[in-house]
């Protein structure tokens, strides 16, 4: 009797694990999906980003910008230079991502960007610099790193004539941005510094090569059109993104990933079904006498089938419900761990600031119901053969058993 109860509990536990895993993984990927959608949604809707192609060595030059400017629907093309560097002020140093571009259109490209103090750097200003919030006010210090009007040194290391050289130049702080935090963009704006395009070109010695071009179109409805036209003109030389395609790209990858994860998790449920089959089969064997009795007393085949299928269904139902609940908790746990792992990794990549640490999982009723239905279906399928066997037992033979 106790053995039977233990077996039932173990069988249900198998379903709980399978359903729980499915729920947790599903919730995590949906959460990530929503989060990234939100993040990339902050890129201006009428902006097209042109970046160097991943497979090609074609550079982005002034000529690229000229061609792009002539495309129908383009309002303005803004080339920029972007490099990692170090900033020094009054003895302290910090790593920073430097972008040089015409800053007059910065708000069209990143609509949520705001100035806290001062002004943007003028297009021809060769010594002006605008700082992201965490550069000017580092979170681990009481005193600011720099203020409006401070003089900073930007330095970066490069190879010139086979020798490692460090270039330095001084800049004056013209403006400081508001803190964007993690609700900002996929760029670590808080840890960036912005200068004019000519200043960056000359300091980083890029000689007419750009890191990318931000294209502002006449309206959001033109963005896709402009993007296709640019793709048509340049083929695979450049990667062209609109905020919409960027979101779609990420979401497609995420979608495929979540299907993969979901399939892996569903395998665990299928494994559970083997357990259910074994458990129910053993149960039928053990209850042969009982089945004979039920038949003697007039229970029809269908009735016996119903008894055992009913047990299988109950296992699926209870296991699925518990699995949904356990999965919610499991998903949160896994998201916390994933976030901590991500912090470790991204803090090295984004120069000290973890832009995403914890992405909360997101659960929908549809997912719960689907996983519940799946658990029940798997359990019923697993129980079908043992139940059928039970219904077909010869009562005379069955009654002989002890």
């Amino acid at each position, binding site marked *: *009797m106790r053995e039977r109860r233990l077996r039932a509990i173990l069988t249900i536990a198998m379903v709980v694990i399978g359903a729980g895993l499915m729920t947790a993984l599903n919730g995590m990927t949906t959460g990530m999906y929503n989060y990234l959608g939100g993040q990339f949604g902050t890129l201006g809707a009428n902006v097209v980003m042109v970046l160097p192609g991943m497979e090609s060595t074609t550079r982005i030059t002034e000529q690229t910008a000229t061609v792009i400017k002539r495309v129908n629907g383009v309002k303005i093309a803004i080339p920029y230079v972007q490099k990692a560097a170090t900033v020094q002020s009054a003895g302290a140093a910090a790593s920073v991502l430097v972008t040089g571009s015409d800053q007059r259109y910065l708000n069209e490209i990143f609509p949520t960007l705001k100035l806290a103090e001062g002004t943007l750097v003028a297009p021809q200003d060769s010594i002006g610099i605008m700082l992201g919030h965490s550069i000017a006010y580092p979170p681990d210090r009481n005193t600011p790193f720099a203020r409006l009007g401070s003089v900073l040194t930007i330095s970066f290391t490069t190879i010139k004539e086979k020798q490692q050289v460090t270039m330095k130049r001084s800049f004056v702080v013209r403006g400081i941005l508001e803190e964007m935090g993690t609700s900002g963009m996929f760029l670590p704006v808080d840890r960036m510094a912005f200068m004019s395009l000519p200043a960056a070109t000359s300091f980083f010695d890029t000689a007419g090569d750009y890191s990318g071009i931000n294209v502002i179109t006449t309206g959001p409805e033109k963005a896709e059109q402009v993007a296709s036209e640019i793709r048509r003109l340049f083929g695979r030389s450049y990667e062209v993104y609109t905020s919409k395609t960027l979101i779609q790209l990420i979401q497609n990858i995420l979608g495929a990933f979540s299907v993969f994860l979901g399939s892996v998790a569903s395998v665990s449920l299928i494994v559970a079904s083997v357990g259910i089959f074994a458990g129910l089969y053993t149960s039928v064997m053990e209850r042969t*006498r009982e089945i004979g009795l*039920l*038949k*003697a007393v*007039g*229970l029809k*085949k269908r009735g016996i089938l119903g008894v055992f299928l009913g047990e299988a269904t109950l296992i699926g139902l209870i296991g699925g419900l518990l699995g949904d609940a356990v999965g919610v908790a499991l998903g949160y746990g896994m998201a916390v761990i994933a976030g901590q792992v991500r912090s470790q990794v991204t803090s090295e990549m984004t120069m000290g600031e973890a832009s995403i640490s914890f992405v909360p999982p997101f659960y929908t009723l549809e997912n719960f119901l689907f996983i519940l239905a799946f658990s029940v279906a798997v359990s019923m399928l697993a129980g079908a053969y043992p139940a059928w066997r039970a219904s077909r037992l010869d*009562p005379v033979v069955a009654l002989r058993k*002890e």
Partner: protein
Amino acid sequence: MQSDPLIRTENLTKTYRIGSIDFPALNGVSLDIDRGEFISIVGPSGSGKSTLLNLLGALDRPTSGRVFVEGLDLFRRNENQLSDFRNKRLGFIFQAHNLLMRTSVIANVSLPAMIAGEPRARRTKHAQDLLEKVGLGDKLTRKPTELSGGEQQRVAVARALMNDPLIVLGDEPTGNLDSKTGAEIVALMKSINEERGTVFILVTHNPEVANETQRVIHLRDGQISHVERIPG
């Protein structure tokens, strides 16, 4: 007694095939059983007693021959109809393991009525009445494991009567009991037979049990050797 027998068997045979060998368990049994009879079937091991009982109880089909109950050919029915017949017209009492061990006594007794679709309140009341009748009115919610052998057989009797059957079939109903308890059970069955007219057919190897019945059918090698009437 009425002119038409309740049960009539015509040349009933049952042959089991084991491997390539045919084993004739029953070799042409013809008998009549009237309403209200309290009879026993006796014989040595292998005489075919249990086989005959299984056939009368529609748990098995004959190789040849027919069984008429209330004038109707029993085995013209399909399996579902036979299940129905067992449920509504028959009661079974086995030597042991009559009951579902994990269910309460009252649920065990109600089982045939539940299968017949009787509503819960009615069948529970009916089961309660029957259990009181067999002297177990105070043990309704107990599990069979908490009862003695004799008590378990009483529950089996109550269950057998649940759907008010024509016939109760007992396969060595006192086989596992001591002689005193066994006699009590036989007395119980006899009183029910006298009160309700339910036919009791008991397979037994115990002559004391056989002597309590009205008619003893002796089987030998799958055939009726003789029929004995018990006076009184």
